[in-house]
């Protein structure tokens, strides 16, 4: 039987790669170091698979097809949007479990769209490269399952549904006959404004509010946030707290611990790192 053994809530900020020297040195060290800390903690969990939940940035999907949620059930590579220091590569997958999650969802009210060969963008590639790859390099075999939800392009997935989707992942993992040890990674946020006149603004109060909900496992509070409130206080990029909600929904009742946080205007984002404990 499978089990979710832990979770992380992390940013996937491409500007860290595009303009790595922009913030002060101590901030740079702390933020890159926070990814290293996540990798250390992931290694300790002895995971066999990670489910990384990202959001499309109107990059993977165009106006012809905008899925509410999609799972990569086959080969995975990325990123689609190659960045300095983040070249495209094959990402070890976890096809059996990914297919099982899709099948289990289809039988239980979750009509997953599936990607049989998925070139993910930076939303999945950054946490995979910075958190999972270092653990693979130590000899642990970990397959990545990419999940994308509609948080960057409307119609946005409802927050309630995002939480339920996390529950569907949990239910599938626990129904899996194999002894999978699964870690969920909610990739996104926290406050940031992408391409809007406010770009470069960071709202520390909003970021702290969301991290507080994450650390206390307060699904009720996060579900109660209206889109208008999130857009006003967290920006269009703040809608990505939906990825956090999916991960939290996969670990109901879990408490969290802040690994690090900094509002980094140079990287246009409030960068928050939280570990969720099963």
């Amino acid at each position, binding site marked *: 039987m499978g089990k979710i053994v832990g979770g992380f809530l992390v940013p996937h900020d*491409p*500007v860290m790669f*595009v*303009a790595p020297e*922009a913030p002060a040195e101590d901030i740079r060290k702390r933020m890159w170091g926070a990814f290293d800390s996540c990798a250390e903690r992931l290694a300790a969990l002895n995971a066999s698979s990670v489910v990384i939940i990202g959001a499309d*940035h*109107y*990059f993977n999907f*165009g*106006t*012809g097809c905008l899925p509410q949620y999609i799972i990569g059930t086959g080969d995975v590579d990325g990123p689609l*949007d190659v*960045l300095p220091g983040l070249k495209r590569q094959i990402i070890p997958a976890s096809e059996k479990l990914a297919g099982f999650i899709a099948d289990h969802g289809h039988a239980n009210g979750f009509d997953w769209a599936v990607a049989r060969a998925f070139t993910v963008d930076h939303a999945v590639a950054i946490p995979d490269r910075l958190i999972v790859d270092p653990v693979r390099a130590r000899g642990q075999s970990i397959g990545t399952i990419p999940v994308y939800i509609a948080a*960057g*392009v*409307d119609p946005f997935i409802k927050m309630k549904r995002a939480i339920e989707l996390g529950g569907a992942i949990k239910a599938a993992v626990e129904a899996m006959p194999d002894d999978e040890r699964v870690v969920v990674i909610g990739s996104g946020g926290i406050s*940031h404004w*992408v*391409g*809007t*006149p406010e*770009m*470069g603004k960071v709202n520390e109060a909003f970021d702290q509010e969301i991290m507080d909900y994450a650390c206390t496992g307060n699904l009720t509070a996060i579900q109660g946030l209206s889109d208008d409130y999130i857009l006003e206080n967290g920006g*269009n*990029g703040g809608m990505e707290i939906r990825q956090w909600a999916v991960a939290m929904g996969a670990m109901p009742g879990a408490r969290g611990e802040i690994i690090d946080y900094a509002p980094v*205007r*140079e*990287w*246009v*984002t409030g960068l928050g790192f939280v570990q969720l404990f099963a």
Partner: protein
Amino acid sequence: MSRNVLEKLMHQLCVDRSVKQRFKEDPAGLLARYALSDEERTMVTDFDVAGMQKHGVNPMLTLGFWTENAPNRHPAAYMKALRGAAAAEGQVFSAGLKQ
């Protein structure tokens, strides 16, 4: 809705190299293939990202469109186009994938 057609074009101008090349070489010919009003075509050729956002176009697309296609791709130029002259004040930070 023309917002949808604008977003289709913006998406292609972000990710499709051949569409980007056609836009550079023959913008009128490219735009004739899309069901856009004259006003909307002008928005595109003028890189009127503020107008497009008011039209409902996703800001991630206007940023990508600018970053991939504008004559002056510097983030400060994008912010000036978006905010007007006020953008000239203070530092500019960008989420663009190319800077």
